[in-house]
């Protein structure tokens, strides 16, 4: 299968700190690739480079062959790279449904004039967006919470809402930054199922940064291990578990 995301030789410096040096990451269409490593290894930075939030000092980012370098965040999103956030960034001033409809911002096919005049196109498109958003809410199991104010949802549901919102934008590549953070075991298991379904039913590529090793080993197709900003190892969960360097790095860290 073709590579969906190809990150090559990416380096990032923050002031005097080399956050990433010559890092690489590959995500294949319909695969879940996890990015693991000790705290400060540069995982979130690497996701940032892919999403466009962090400008690298060198290296390339390609999505299905298209060079994304230099594109601002919103244009990368339009190209199909959509992320969730380590510290929840839901739109707390909207309902769950509105959050997901905002996710579908790019999907709306009407102009300002249409919305001012409430043309049939506007009505039709808004209806379609609502249905699309409902579909995503159902997908993550939040359908009946659609009219709840997002800030009123419990933490675990806010995480799911963020996922639904990201999916509504119709991504080709989903970047999930610690989606299970703060979830209990049951919620994490549910999340694992949803991520798997994203892969299996929607054939979206997923890049996952996660500390919960059980979840990572359970759902990942491939794993990339980052250590001090460089790739330490790359392979299937089995290969990674058996890799002595990885074991040493993790033991050394703890």
């Amino acid at each position: 299968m073709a590579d969906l995301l190809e990150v090559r030789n990416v380096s990032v410096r923050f002031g005097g700190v080399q956050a990433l040096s010559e890092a690489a990451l590959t995500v294949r269409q319909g695969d879940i690739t996890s990015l693991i490593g000790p705290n400060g290894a540069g995982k979130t930075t690497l996701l940032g480079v892919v999403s466009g939030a962090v400008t690298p000092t060198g290296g390339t980012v390609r999505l299905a062959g298209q060079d994304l370098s230099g594109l601002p965040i919103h244009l990368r999103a339009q190209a199909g790279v959509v992320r969730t956030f380590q510290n929840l960034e839901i739109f707390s001033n909207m309902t769950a449904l509105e959050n997901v409809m905002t996710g579908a911002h790019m999907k709306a096919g009407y102009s300002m004039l249409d919305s001012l005049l409430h043309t049939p196109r506007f009505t039709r498109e808004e209806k379609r967006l609502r249905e699309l958003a409902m579909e995503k809410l159902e997908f993550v199991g939040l359908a009946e919470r659609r009219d709840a104010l997002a800030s009123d949802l419990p933490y675990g549901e806010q995480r799911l809402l963020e996922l639904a919102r990201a999916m509504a934008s119709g991504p080709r590549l989903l970047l999930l930054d610690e989606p299970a953070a703060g979830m209990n075991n049951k919620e994490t298991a549910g999340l694992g199922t949803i991520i798997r379904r994203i892969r299996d039913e929607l054939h979206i590529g997923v890049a996952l940064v996660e500390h919960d090793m059980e979840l990572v080993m359970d759902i990942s197709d491939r794993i990339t291990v980052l250590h001090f900003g460089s790739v330490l190892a790359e392979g299937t969960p089995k290969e990674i578990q058996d890799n002595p360097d990885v074991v040493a790095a993790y033991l050394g860290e703890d």
Partner: protein
Amino acid sequence: MGLFRKNFGLLAFAAALGLAPLALPNDYYINVLILCCFNALIVMGLNLLMGYAGQVSLGHAAFFGLAAYTTAISTATLGLPIPVGMLAGVAVSAAVAWLLAVPTLKLHGNYLAMATLGFGIIVSIVFNEAVGLTGGPSGFVGIPRLKIAGFTFTSDKAYYFLSAAVLWVATLVSRRVIGSRTGRALRAIHVSESAAQAMGIDIARHKRFVFVLSAVYAGVAGTLYAHHLTFVAPSSFGFHFSVQLLTMVVLGGMASIWGAVAGAFFLTSLPEFLRMFEEVDILIYGGLLIACMMFMPSGLAGGAQAIARKLKAGVRRG
């Protein structure tokens, strides 16, 4: 039925605006109502910018003034037809906002407040000092009364109905902007710029859009104001008025169109009620501001909602 319910607020608002003059004990109060309409227009635009998109502006009096002076100069000095002057006024406000938006809206929070504040002060200094153009501190005299297609708005009542109609249309436009994907994008930007960008929203473009839109609202109010008062002076467009506008937005209720109307009408007419306290009125005004914010942190709109919710709960329980 659904359509009626959805638009009930707008219909009720139209009725209230239309019937308001009948409830007045005296013709004089028409003038207060006209000022209320002007202020509500500006505050509604500012609420789109601040309440919805979360971008503070402490310089909106400048857009109001730019439009007022532009139409004043166009019609009185250059002798252009009034509608042309008014269009030019709104266009100048919008154009200045468009130019200012790019560098300014990159700033955040207090820095944005300072930049807009500084802009407002610079503009008011120009109004004050460009005597040849603006008439300087003592003002610009001789602006013609509004005349459109041969009809002169001589009576204050006619002017009120015109202003009220414009305000109503502005309300409709605001509601439709907010109800569209642009509205959702603006509210998204308010909470999290990074998440909004991640959803493919071009935040620079949206911020600029709403900044220009709010300047257009202020501009429309400014042109109506100039041709109503037939006189403009720099003191009406200074820092003081910008702060008043901000107060109206917050007191009315952030991110609420009806709150904008309520805040503007309340604070514009409040001095009329406080007159009986003579000089102590200033203390009462200050005290009221503090009390409102202490007991109604979501403004008049939020307060009304809370009361409505309580009433509903009471009915259910009863």
